[in-house]
């Protein structure tokens, strides 16, 4: 009597695991999280904790009572979704809205398709866009930054996002270069969601993910490059109508989307050629929505739209087959 394991080869396994990938992503989000605490104070912690807790709880409940499957919350993907959702929210949003968003993100965005890996759309963005459409006021009323150190620079309770400020200004006929001339370099003037104010912190986390080989460098770089090219061309043509490209690159949620949302494994193409098409699409759609659309920020919509194209891209972009060069 022995208890040997019989299995098909290979009998050794690499060090990759779903858990490791998810926890790497969580670690990578830490710099941005800390920065958001620094920027918005305790409210950032409140929103993030509520979002993560709600996401994990919803996933657990659905697994336990609806799907009755193996428990999957330990793989950390719900925590990632929760944090990403929180990163997309303003810090003063009421708790119940966050919970509704979490239910939509996990329940509809992820579990209704069968859980991790089966969802066609990025769950955090599904939650965020649902909230944006359902609670447009709460979702676009940004609190004035309440830094942990020092005084708030304005007395106002709410402030605009940089991109929102510019969009509004341009609509009123003010030249874009004037709009940004004075206060763009000063921190704590403009607001935003938790994850979009600290572009540098996001980049640090993104570099960590690239270093850990969790994500490819191509996707974020191409998205950012596409946005940069289109916005530069527009700016060169008409600096009055269009704002400086640096504002587009660092001013909004581009970094968060490029490093953390567009690289989501389940909702991005499988092959490198597919990823390139996907990234170019996201970059182009983002800047089109920002420049000519109704919303000042287009990242979420761009990613969701391109998510819908992923099955098609996967079908078209096949890897290069070995031995297919010679045809007889």
């Amino acid at each position, binding site marked *: 009597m022995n208890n040997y394991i019989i299995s098909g080869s*290979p009998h*050794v396994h690499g060090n990759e695991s779903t858990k490791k990938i998810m926890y790497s992503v969580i670690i990578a989000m830490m710099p941005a999280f800390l920065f958001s605490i620094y920027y918005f104070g305790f409210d950032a912690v409140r929103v993030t904790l509520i979002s993560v807790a709600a996401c994990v709880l919803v996933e657990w409940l659905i697994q336990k009572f609806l799907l009755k499957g193996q428990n999957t919350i330990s793989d950390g993907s719900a925590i990632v979704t929760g944090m990403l959702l929180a990163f997309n929210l303003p810090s003063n949003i009421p708790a119940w809205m966050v919970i509704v968003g979490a239910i939509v993100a996990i329940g509809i965005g992820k579990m209704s398709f069968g859980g991790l*890996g089966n969802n066609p759309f990025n769950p955090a963005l599904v939650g965020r866009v649902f909230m944006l459409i359902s609670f447009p006021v709460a979702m676009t009323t940004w609190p004035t930054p309440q830094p942990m150190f020092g005084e708030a620079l304005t007395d106002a309770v709410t402030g605009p996002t940089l991109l929102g400020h510019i969009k509004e200004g341009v609509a009123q006929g003010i030249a874009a270069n004037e709009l940004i001339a004075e206060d763009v370099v000063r921190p704590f003037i403009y607001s935003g969601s938790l994850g979009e104010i600290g572009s540098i912190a996001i980049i640090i986390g993104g570099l960590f993910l690239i270093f850990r080989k969790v994500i490819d460098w191509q996707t974020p770089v191409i998205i950012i490059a596409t946005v940069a090219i289109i916005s530069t061309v527009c700016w060169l043509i008409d600096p009055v109508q269009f704002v400086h490209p640096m504002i587009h690159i660092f001013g909004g949620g581009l970094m968060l989307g490029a490093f953390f949302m567009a690289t989501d494994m389940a909702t991005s193409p499988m092959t490198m050629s597919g990823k390139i098409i996907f990234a170019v699409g996201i970059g182009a759609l983002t800047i089109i929505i920002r420049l000519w659309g109704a919303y000042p920020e287009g990242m979420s919509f761009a990613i969701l739209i391109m998510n819908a194209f992923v099955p098609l891209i996967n079908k078209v972009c096949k890897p*290069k087959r070995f031995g297919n060069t010679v045809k007889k």
Partner: protein
Amino acid sequence: MNPKKTFPKGGVHPEENKLSSDQPIITFPIPKQAIIPLGQCLGAPAEAIVKKGDEVKVGQLIGTAKGFISANVHSSVSGKVTKVDEVMDHTGYRKPAIFIEVNGDEWLEDIDTSDTLVKDITLSREEIIERVKNHGIVGMGGATFPTNVKLSIPKDKKAEFVIINAAECEPYLTCDNRLLLEKSNEFLVGVKVLMKAVDAPKAIIGIEVNKIKAAELLDKIIREDSYFSGIEVQPLQTKYPQGGEKQLIKACTGREVPSGKLPIETGCVVVNVASTFAIYEAVQKNKPLISRVVTVTGKSVKKPSNFMVRIGTSSMELIEAAGGLPENITNIINGGPMMGKSVSISDFPVIKGTSGILVMTDKEAQPRQVGNCLRCGKCINACPMGLEPYLLSRQAKNNLFEETEASNIMDCIECGSCEFTCPANIPLLDYIRYGKNKTGQIIRSRNQK
């Protein structure tokens, strides 16, 4: 030596764990009883031509090949046939085998048992191939494909290169490495024999750089002796599956074997190191394939070793000699960890294809917790054949065999890189093998119509 080369796409780099690479080959004592399975090659098993009570000598033919893809089986010991019965072999099934009770070590007279190096190749091309066939030589890397079939080049093709597969890309295994170091001259004469057999002007020895000592030694011998001209040592990057036939050809010559075609299409004949040595012994020494080098290894094995073993020796005896069975064994593997076969018993006879016996304990073999496919695409990046393992495994799982065929499942070389790299731990290769099996059946039945 040439600069380092590799195949262009995919591949993984598992922990090498070449624990026994500095252990010289120990000639293992002749066992008391040899159990020689009749099915030792890919294809049809041989047919026994001895019966209970017969006296046999070392090297005597005891099983004849049945069919085109089949190989002769010779007695590896001298003694008396006690029975022709079934034995549980590494496949986990009971297969016919010849049981021989060992008595002394009497060899057939026409076998040259001396150690002298015979360099002159007196046999003609046809005679060499005939000798290889009669002496039951098969691919000793694990696939056990009869070598004579490989060497018989179709009339409309021309062999340009003999490629020696010395990559030994499987982790843990060191038998080819040791053979190259200790029997370098014999091995190189074997290469010469092969070049003559297929009439190829050039031979390339593809060897991974983690065996740089062997590569340097071979290179030195070749440069010093003009007899070996035409042979070239090609260092390769340490990457799995560098020793895959198609990957090796690509790395060494830059040629790509077209999908669904054999290596000869690119003018290459690929032979394994151990087989080359066996061919030397068969052709130059008239010695049939009756012994081979087996690596007994594992992190919990006390003395990982390389043994020169007679075919039919019990694996248990080898494991005992390497320090005995450790506790908490989870897997015993016939071959290497990437392509070897897990066996359900610790006592099985060594056959021609047993390149290693790997004993893994719960320290090395992780329990498998299968998750959902993340669609991360790591399997696509790892696949050296440019396939989509996640897709193939799904199609096979759902019995969509028309789709698997369209997705080129038959191109899969079953290297297991996809499964190795999968973060969700999905048994991708299991499903693909199943799909390949079924798709192959469908294609064959369609071709017959």
